[in-house]
């Protein structure tokens, strides 16, 4: 990896639709993906809800964006980490998620987090 490549982790921590943070976070990631940095995304706490299957936002007249996470692969954003504890305490399993992710223990996500040059919470 070149010297000017930075390790940047985006941390999703909010549930979708109640606020815009997850959606505008995703817009940021899509732009950053064009810059060929070493990007990753961690889903922690209510952030895991962003990946829930079968979201239909028609009734609240808002644009849905869950499927955009499925497009990240095409942007070479392939490091998607989900906190195992956060998923379990919400009564969810990997089968409830729209995309393939790495299900990791908090300590392992913490270790990868500590190697970053930049961490941005959304």
């Amino acid at each position, binding site marked *: 990896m070149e010297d000017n490549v930075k390790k940047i982790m985006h941390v999703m921590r909010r549930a979708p*639709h*109640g*606020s*815009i943070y997850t959606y505008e976070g995703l817009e940021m990631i899509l732009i950053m993906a064009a810059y060929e940095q070493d990007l990753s995304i961690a889903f922690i706490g209510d952030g895991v809800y962003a990946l829930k299957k079968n979201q239909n936002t028609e009734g*609240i*007249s*808002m*644009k849905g964006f869950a499927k955009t996470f499925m497009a990240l692969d095409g942007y070479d954003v392939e490091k998607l980490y989900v906190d195992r504890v956060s998923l379990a305490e919400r009564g969810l399993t990997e089968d409830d998620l729209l995309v393939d992710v790495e299900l990791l223990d908090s300590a392992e996500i913490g270790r990868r987090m500590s190697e970053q040059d930049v961490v941005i919470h959304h």
Partner: protein
Amino acid sequence: MNIGILLKEGPYNHQAADTAYKFAEAAIKKGHTVDAVFLYNDGVINATNLTDPPQDDRNIAARWSNMAKEHGVEILACIAASKRRGITDDIMIEGGSITGLGTLTDIAIRNDRLLTFGD
């Protein structure tokens, strides 16, 4: 039933403006009167006519403006809250206006309900 609404968060950033609108729309459709939507805290940002969201997204400011025109709902932004956030008469949506907290008190007194939406 006569209804007043207090809206405490800005558009897009929080869902409060959306829920307040959908509630008001449903209440009007059922024959109730929505007297006023009073904008407080960051809620005043709902009232700027400079809002310009993506084409395929809802236009929250325009929705309020249309509701004011079509159903006589007063859209009122608190003056003190507006000054802190740069909302002025010059950029006010059609059908909206700037007023004081006394007006909110009148709204609370004269309506059957005052509902708060925020985060």
